[in-house]
Every structure is written in C-alpha cells, then in structure tokens.
C-alpha cells in the first residue's frame, strides 16, 4: 500500500526539516504525529476568523462555534461507531482515563472489589487506578501476559472473579504493540459484572474502531497521535455508564442550575464532563484530522503499517546484534536493543543520524521487569512512514559500532 503521496500534506515532512544537519526521519509516531495542512488550517481558521466561546453567546459567531463542536462530536462518533452523546471531549487519553477512574471507579468501588490491569499498561492506565485503589481500598491485580507480552482472553478468564469491577487494558500496547481482543475481553468482563475500560491511545489512530462491535464500556484516546492537535482527546462511554459517572471537574458549562444552598443540577453527558472553556481550536483541528484519516481509510492505514512492520522485521533479521522484542506484534512498532549499547546511547546515536526514536521505559515502567531489560529503543510508524525511513534506521543500525561518535564528530 503506497501512501507516500500523503507526505506532501505535512509541513514537517515536505519542508526540508533537518535534525543534526540530516534530513529528519520521524519514527516516534507512538509518541506523537505530524499535522497535515488541513489540521493546521482548521486551527488557524478558529483563531483568525471564527473565534468565539461556545454555549455562551446569542450571536452568530458563538452559534457557529457550537455547531462546529457538534459536527466534531458527530465526526468522532462516526469514526468510532458510537452515538454523538457518547463522545466526551477531554484534553487527551490521560485525562479520559482519569475521568473514568475518578468519576466512575472512585464512585462505585468498594474495599472488597478488584481492578484488573496488565504489566504492559501505560502509566496513564495504571497510576489513576493506583490512586483510586488507595481511596476506595479496592485491590489492583494483574492479568498475566504470555511470555511475549500478549494479553489473551483466556488469561483474563483465569484471574477474573465476581469481585472484579474494572478491567482496564490497552487495545494496543505502547511498548510492544500487541493488539488485544477487546471484544472477547469485554464479553468476559461483562459475564462477571465488570466494566471494560479500553486505552485506545495506540489503536484508534491506526486501526478501524467500532465501539459497538468491541462492546467496551469506555474508550480513551488522544487527538495528537492521530494527526490532530495536542491538548484534545476523547472519552467514549456507553451512555448509561456516562449517566452514572460523576464529573471529574466542575464549573462553568457543565451545570444546569445551582443555588446558594449548594443544590446543583449537572447537565446530562457529555457536557456534564466538559467544565470550563473547551480546547476549541483543538476541536476544530480534531475534526479536520478525523476527516483526513477517514479520507485515507483506516483499513489502508493498518495495511500499510503491517507491511512496513514485516519489511522492518525481515531486514533486522540480518543483524544478530539486534534483539527485537516484538517481531510478531500487530502494530507498526519496533522495540529493540542493540547488543552492548544502552538504549539511551542508541537513541542519541540515531539522533546524530537525523532519526527520531524513543528510548527508555516508554511510560510503561512495570514492563521493564517483564522484558528483563531496563530500557529499550522504540521506533514507531504511521501511514506517512516509508520503507526509505526504515532503510535509514537499518543503515544506522549497521554502523552502530561507532555509536559514541555522536558525541565527537
């Protein structure tokens, strides 16, 4: 699948951006993604010609902003297969997961209850639950992973009990890129009366999502990982669960009425969760990003990334000094180490070649004990990544014995 024609839409890819004097090779898409012109223009349109607050004015500009929010909500709903009332705007996946943890988890969990996570979760799907466990006395337990790091439904079946109230897992894990069978996991969770919270930060940008089919109860994702702006994200929740969820923040724009006696009536979801002025430019940009991705086709994006992954895995086979931790994972993520080169030193070396990769624990710090390494290098792709980008990475690996040259030459 050749999607390289889309590179011309991205200033970061077409404007001759360099790093360390070399043409930029961007392989940190799991961290964030570049923005096409249409997204940048949408943000600019809001700031230049359509600025107004929402839900506030009786004038045309405010009405237009309200309409854009509504249209974006509809676009997101179409993108993930939900109803528009089930789309809550947040600042990102972290905010979304915190809203579920504190608005739902903290409200309903009791000391005898259990929260099930995995060792491969991002910090944003671990730390809110740690805090909620501390507040409620509920216990955190881990669903065992296979030795490769994959979450299998039968392993959930082994540890789930009728005390389990929350199962919170990544759809695609951010270090290894394994895709979980959310539909099967949801069915098991529901059989035991638990809700399934899906961290979609690494899946929603890369594969077609249908929340009705997945049957997850909540889904969190960020705009900036799918070509949208930073500071905007979404929490999807089944409507009846959103109704039962408390707001995480209170303030303007989310209440229907309140009086001096502290009697407050909150708005219905999703606006109940959207206190204060939303990231309106972010919403304009998110709308443009979603339209853009749907124009390319999520199936095409997934197919392209799988092809790149297979290409990269085949190439790396020629280098016995490269330890690849996730050759068989679905996502366009390569997680590896080069023998005798500390991950951070490797990342600095790649930087010296103009290649942006991430080193470290990738915000999944409990995974490092599972992998038996303190840190890894992660190269991650998107639809605009090319085989030439991967060739650059492989070529750098081939010459990595000179890695300390990054500091001298």
């Amino acid at each position: 699948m050749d999607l390289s024609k889309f590179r011309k839409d991205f200033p970061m890819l077409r404007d001759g951006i360099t790093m360390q004097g070399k043409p930029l090779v961007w392989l940190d898409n799991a961290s964030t993604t570049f923005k096409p012109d249409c997204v940048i223009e949408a943000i600019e349109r809001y700031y230049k010609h359509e600025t107004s607050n929402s839900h506030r004015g009786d004038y045309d500009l405010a009405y237009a902003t309200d309409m854009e929010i509504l249209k974006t909500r509809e676009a997101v709903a179409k993108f993930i297969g939900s109803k528009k009332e089930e789309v809550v705007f947040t600042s990102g996946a972290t905010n979304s997961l915190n809203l579920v943890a504190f608005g739902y988890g903290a409200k309903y969990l009791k000391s005898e209850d259990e929260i099930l996570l995995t060792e491969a979760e991002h910090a944003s799907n671990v730390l809110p639950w740690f805090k909620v466990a501390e507040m409620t006395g509920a216990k955190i337990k881990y669903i065992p992973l296979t030795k490769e790091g994959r979450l299998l439904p039968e392993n959930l079946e082994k540890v789930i009990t009728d005390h389990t109230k929350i199962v919170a897992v990544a759809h695609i894990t951010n270090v290894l890129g394994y895709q979980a069978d959310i539909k099967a996991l949801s069915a098991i969770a529901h059989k035991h009366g638990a809700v399934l919270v899906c961290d979609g930060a690494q899946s929603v940008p890369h594969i077609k999502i249908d929340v009705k089919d997945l049957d997850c109860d909540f889904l969190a994702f960020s705009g900036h990982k799918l070509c949208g702006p930073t500071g905007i994200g979404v929490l999807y929740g089944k409507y009846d669960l959103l109704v039962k969820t408390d707001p995480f923040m209170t303030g303007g724009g989310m209440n229907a009425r309140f009086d001096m006696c502290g009697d407050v009536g909150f708005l219905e979801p999703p606006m109940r969760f959207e206190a204060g002025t939303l990231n309106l430019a972010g919403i304009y940009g998110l709308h443009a990003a979603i339209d853009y991705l749907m124009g390319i086709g999520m199936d095409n994006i997934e197919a392209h990334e799988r092809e790149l992954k297979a290409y990269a895995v085949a190439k790396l086979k020629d280098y016995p000094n490269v330890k690849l931790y996730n050759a068989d994972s679905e996502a366009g993520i390569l997680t590896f180490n080069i023998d005798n080169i500390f991950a951070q030193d490797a990342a600095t070396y790649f930087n010296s070649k103009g290649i942006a990769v991430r080193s470290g624990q990738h915000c999944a710090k409990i995974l490092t004990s599972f992998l038996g390494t303190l840190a890894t290098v992660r190269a991650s792709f998107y639809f605009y990544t090319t085989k030439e980008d991967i060739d650059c990475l492989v070529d750098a690996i081939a010459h990595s014995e000179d890695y300390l040259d990054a500091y001298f030459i």
Partner: protein
Amino acid sequence: MPTSFELTPEMMRAIIMDHYSSPRHKHDAEGEGYVSLHSSSVNCIDDIEVYLKLNKEGKVEDACWNGVACAISTASSDIICDLLVGKTEDEAKYLIEQYNHMLHEEPYDAEPLEEALAFKNTSRQAARIHCATIGWDAFNELIKGHKHE
C-alpha cells in the same frame, strides 16, 4: 581556554569506552565516613547514588558511585571520582565549575579537567548534557554541604 594539545575523536571515544566498560569507582561505599546523594533523571533512565568521603584535612579521600547509567553518565561519573581524590573542597568546586562551563560551551580552564575533556563535544547532543553532568551535579551538592548521611 583550549588545551595545549587537542584530543582527537578517537582519544575521546577511547576514554569514554574505557570508563564505560570498566569503571573503576562503580561500587557502593565501603566503610565509615561517607556522605551520599541519590540522583536520577526525569527524561532518561539514569538513576545513581554518589558517595564522598573527606579526610581530616578536608581533602577528598574517596569518591565512588553506583547505579543504572548510560555510557555518558557512567564514564562521566567515573572520571569525576578519579579527579576528585586528593582535592580540597575549593579545588573540587573549581573543577566542577570548569566542567560545567565546558559542557555549556562557555570559556573554561582545561587544566584541571584531564580525561573529562572527552566530554568537550557533548553539547552537540543537547538532550544528553544532563547525562554528562548527573554525577558531577550530585558531587557538587555533596561538596557544597548538602549532606545525606
């Protein structure tokens, strides 16, 4: 100020690889009289403890460090231990000051830096300057008297 001789890239690499592959001072403190300080990095994996022992005359009797560290932080922490031993507090402070000037591309006195000159070009990898200073900063804190027995 520049040194009387220029370190070649090969020499810099040899110095760093030497201290990275066989650090002399990478171990916990043994015995009494040490002060120590923990230091870790937010954006990198480095997580080290440094130990310092002064003698009665106020000179550094021993310096060592231990922990998880990349090549640059391993070599730089090890080299400062070499350089600190035998120095007075004032000499140690001067050494660390000159090293910091060098890393931040400011004028510096190369004379006391010896093998630490291998980090002269670390500023080319701006994101990693912290790796070259993590041990140095911790020793600096200890020398300034922020003691954690």
